[in-house]
């Protein structure tokens, strides 16, 4: 059983009557949050995100708090216990290049439980202490909270292929250095120009947010890799890109994205759902983001994330530009 509220940062110190508190904070109020957390005595964990969702709205100045009536086992990636059952709520430093490795390690340890959450961090793409628990704030890591119930979850994005593919001929973690044996940005730019889109280093994210990369799977949707920035001809993504992988240039259709969100939500039977929605998706949808939230036809709450985590019956994945819905 949980209770979910939207509060001002200074109200947090008054919270009680629960065993564990999950705190989802927009980056803009992190200073006030830190001041007030000092007064909080109950066990808590949470992340700092580009924004939060509560009911049908996005907030940048208020905090979503989720009160659990069960005592959750909270642990960082450096202290993973031997066994975990039920589900794990996972907040990861979204800009940490080793985030996927930590998630894989958790999956290898705990197997087919449910994993739901997303990447914390700043939309400025600067590293910040974006994860916290009673012991303080930290970055470059992962925070887990073990829920007894098996969370049902769904994940979708709605992005579709343009028909253009690249081979990521040189990569390093999340950085694509070369596409088709040429500097990555040059190739990417060339193809966007063919589609009538002008992209430069300055307007990179403004344009690129509509044209992510997709890695194909035999079943289900492509895994999306979100191009976040460019530097020295290389492209930084919000998730790992393996060398020699075939990347499809994807395109967005707002209606399809919203439809994906709706279908995702519909597959979960619950009056209230946790939603981890990608900030880049939010930025792409713009004013239409409200439509996506509306498409989630029930009470919802959650973070706007830099990368999403979802797995229940398949190998764990760190998604981009995706919406994850679960019945926490």
């Amino acid at each position, binding site marked *: 059983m949980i209770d979910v509220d939207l509060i001002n940062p200074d109200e947090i110190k008054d919270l009680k009557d629960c065993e564990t508190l999950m705190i989802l904070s927009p980056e803009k109020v992190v200073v006030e949050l830190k001041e007030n957390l000092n007064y909080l005595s109950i066990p808590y964990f949470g992340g700092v995100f580009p924004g939060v969702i509560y009911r049908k709205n996005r907030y940048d100045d208020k905090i979503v708090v989720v009160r659990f009536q069960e005592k959750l086992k909270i642990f960082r990636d450096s202290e993973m216990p031997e*066994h975990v059952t039920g589900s794990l709520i996972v907040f990861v430093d979204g800009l940490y290049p080793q985030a996927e490795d930590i998630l894989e390690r958790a999956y290898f340890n705990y*197997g087919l439980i449910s994993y739901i959450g997303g990447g914390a961090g700043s939309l400025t793409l600067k590293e910040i202490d974006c994860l916290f628990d009673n012991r303080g704030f930290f970055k470059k890591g992962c925070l887990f909270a073990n829920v007894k119930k098996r969370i049902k979850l769904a994940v979708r994005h709605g992005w579709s292929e343009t028909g253009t593919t690249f081979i990521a001929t040189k990569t390093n973690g999340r950085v694509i250095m070369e596409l088709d044996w040429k500097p990555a940005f040059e190739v990417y730019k060339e193809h966007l120009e063919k589609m009538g889109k002008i992209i430069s280093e300055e307007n990179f994210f403004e344009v690129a947010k509509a044209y992510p990369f997709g890695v194909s*799977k035999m079943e289900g949707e492509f*895994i999306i890799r979100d191009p976040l920035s460019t530097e020295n001809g290389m492209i930084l993504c919000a998730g790992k890109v393996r060398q*020699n992988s*075939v990347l499809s240039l994807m395109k967005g259709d707002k209606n399809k994205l919203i439809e994906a969100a709706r279908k995702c939500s519909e597959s979960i039977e619950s009056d209230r759902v946790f939603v981890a929605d990608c900030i880049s998706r939010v930025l792409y949808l713009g004013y239409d983001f409200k439509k996506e939230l509306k498409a989630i036809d029930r009470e919802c709450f959650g973070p706007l994330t830099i990368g999403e985590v979802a797995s229940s019956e398949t*190998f764990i994945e760190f998604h981009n530009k995706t919406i994850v819905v679960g019945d926490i």
Partner: protein
Amino acid sequence: MIDKTKLITTLYELSLLLYPRDVKEMIEEFIKNVMTRFGFSYASIEIPLAGLKMSLPKNFSNGLHKISFEKKYFKLEFGRTKEIPVEYTNILEPLMDKLDQTLEFLILSELKRKLLENNEDVIILVDKNMIVKEMNKKAVELLGDLREKPIDRMWLNENVRLNGRYFYVSVYDLGFLKGIIAKDITEKVLLEIELKEREERLRKIVEIAPFAILIYKDWKFIYANKEAEKLLGYRKEEIIGKHVLDLLPPDCHEKIKHVIHRRIRGEAVPPYDTKIVRKNGEIRHILVDGRKMKWSDGEVIIVAFVDITPQKLLEEDLSFLNSILRHDISNEITIIMNYLELYKEDKSDEFLKKIEESVKRIVNIINNVRNFEEAIKGKECAKIELKDVLSKIVKDFAHNNVEFRVKGDYTVTVNEGGLKIAISNIIENALRHSGTDKIDIEIRGNEDYCEIRIADYGKGIPDDLKEKIFEKGFRYGESANTGLGLYIVKKIIERMGGEVQIEDNQPGGSVFILRLRKG
């Protein structure tokens, strides 16, 4: 329906993951990607030859749908909650074959690499400019890490000594590279040096040993000390290479073969006596002891021996004197006693005559024994002119009215006293038994031997007796005396390393030939 574009892309990407590198790293990345692309939630793999067993995740739920592959080098199983399309087996099969081939290459390469890396030999790969391209652990320990640096050309030599260690080097042509394998043979070399030093010490000891020492291997002598040279009369170089049996008289061969076989088998053989033939043909009695031992060339037999000829002769002398006292003189005394008994009864002069004859024989026996003693007592040998000695002997027989003719001369090194007794006995024998009136003495000689031929012109000696007349106590005819005279001649001459023969003289009589060595 399977999307073929996605399938081609997926298979292309997955196949690119199968390339030589760390087995675990490759397997983990490959399996993770297959799981992601094909929606599997579980995988387990076993690669016995790599000692690898992996389940991803380590805990999994039972009741999954599964698909499995068993190849030469691995067993792999994937599982998931959703049903698995049947086509997946055929789709994944070629990838699994490629995985198997890659594993074969990796495992075998790794095994070879580990073998080389952990080899106790120094292994280095160099290019044509002697730049080190690769080296194993032992090589790094010895030379430091020289990869991409030049190495001394001495490593192309067969034998290398470095930092007090010895290496036996083999160089293999590997096309653009050369493989250098250097075996550390320091322990062996040091052992050999120590063995050689020990041998050298042993040689020095053996060299100054007061007895003869010979070492032989495979029946051939490989070493002889100074005493052995002295005793055998050969120089060391003449002894080395000779067959063991070459130094032994034929009548000893069987016995010695048997002894040597026992020694080769490692059996303990107590000291024994035998005979050897010196270079000059002289036979010497020796006492031998020996054993098998390790030598630098393997196992050898070392024998030490001493000359026991004087002791042997002494034994013979004692035995001779003993037999005379116990047998010959005792016989004569018995005869005297018997005739005395008869005389007491009969008082016949004939019995007194018999007693007188016996007493004379006893006197002769004693004279012979005294002569023999004198002959063997004179151990000192001296150079003598034979003609002078013979002239003196002839003078002693001048009262016998016999004509003596002495011809020739020769210088020999002998015991003069002994030789005089021997020649006198022969002359006396000729005068007593042959009835000759003339005796010719001829001296002949060559580089090694000389012969003294004493010829009479009497009645001669029948052929069937020629061998017997030198036996002890042999008496023949009415003029028979003690039966010791010629026996003593033979003994004396043999003691000098010579020999006595008898031939018929022409037109009648006998020729006694004394053959003596010059030295």
